[in-house]
C-alpha cells in the first residue's frame, strides 16, 4: 500500500477497510451501563470529595 492511499491514525498508516474497522470498534466501545456507572460514581465522588475536604481541613486546623 502506498502512503498516498493510507490515512494516519494514532501514528499508524491504515488502509480504508482497517480504518473503517477501527471506527466501528470505537463506536462499539461506548457502553451505556459503563457511562451510567461512571456518571454515578463521579457524582458520588464529587460529594465525597467535598466532605473529605472539610474533614481534612478541620483536622489540620485543629493541629495548628
Amino acid at each position, binding site marked *: 500500500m502506498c502512503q498516498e492511499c493510507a490515512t494516519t491514525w494514532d501514528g499508524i498508516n491504515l488502509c480504508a477497510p482497517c480504518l473503517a474497522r477501527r471506527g466501528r470498534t470505537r463506536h462499539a*466501545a461506548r457502553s451505556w451501563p459503563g457511562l451510567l456507572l*461512571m456518571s454515578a460514581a463521579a457524582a458520588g465522588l464529587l460529594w465525597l470529595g467535598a466532605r473529605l475536604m472539610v474533614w481534612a*481541613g478541620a483536622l489540620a486546623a485543629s493541629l495548628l
Partner: protein
Amino acid sequence: MRAALSVGEILDESADCVRLVAAPWLGVLWLTSLPLRMAQAHFAARLIELGREAQGYGDHLSRLALVSAATLLLSLWGRAVFANACRQALQGALRGAAVLRLRPTGLLSYAYVALLIEAVFYATCLSAVAVPVLALAAGLAAATLPFSGRAGLLRPLATLSGSAEQARPLVALLLSFGAGFLLAGVNLLALSQAGLWLARGVPGLELARWSGLLSPRYPRFLCVLLAGAWLAVEPWWLASLVVYVHKLRARATGEDLRLWFERLREAEA
C-alpha cells in the same frame, strides 16, 4: 533497545507547545482554573483563621467545599481543552474551535478519575507522602483520559496506569515542576513587595494597610500566593505531560522511528 525519554526534550517541546497554543487556550485554562484556586485559597485561609474552632463551623466549611467542588468541574473542562490544544499542536493540526470538541465519554472518564484522585488527596493529604504521586496522576489523567473512549469504573484507571510506563522522566518532571512552583511563589512574592516599594514613592498614598495585606505573615496572602504560583506553573506542567504521553505513544506505534528515518533521508538529500 531505545533509550528512556529525555526530560530536556520534553521540557523544550512543552515550552514550544505552550507558545503555540497560548492564544487563546492558555487564557481558557487560566480563566477556568482561577475560580477553583481562589476558592481553595479562601477555604484554606478560613481554616487558618478559625484554627481549633474550625470543627464548630461545619456548615460554613461545607458550603465553601461545595463551591470549591463546583469550580473543580469547570477547571477540569479547562484542563481537558488545554491538553487537547497541546495534543493537536503536537500533531501539527491545531484547528481553532475544534479544540473545544471533546468526546463526552473521554470527558466523563477524566472527570471520574480526577474526582477520585481529589478524594484520595483529601483523605491522605495530612500524611503529605502521597501528594506528589497524586499531583502526577492528576496531570497524567488530564493528558490521557479526555481522548480515550473507554467507559467503565476500571478502564480509565487502566489507561492512566498504562501512561505511567516510564518512571524516570515522570519523577524528573515532578522534581522540576516542584522547584518551578517554589520559584514562581518566590517571584510573585518579590513582585508584590517590589510593587509595594515602588508605591511608597507616590505622595499621599497610605500604604500601612497594604503592607499588612501583602505580608507573607498574613495567611490569606500566603494562600493566594500559592494559588498564583500554581496557576503560573500549571500550563507548562500540563503541556509537558501531554508531550510525554505523545512521545510514549509515538514509540508504541513506531512513529518516532519513521520520523527519525525521514530526518536521516532529509539529511542525506
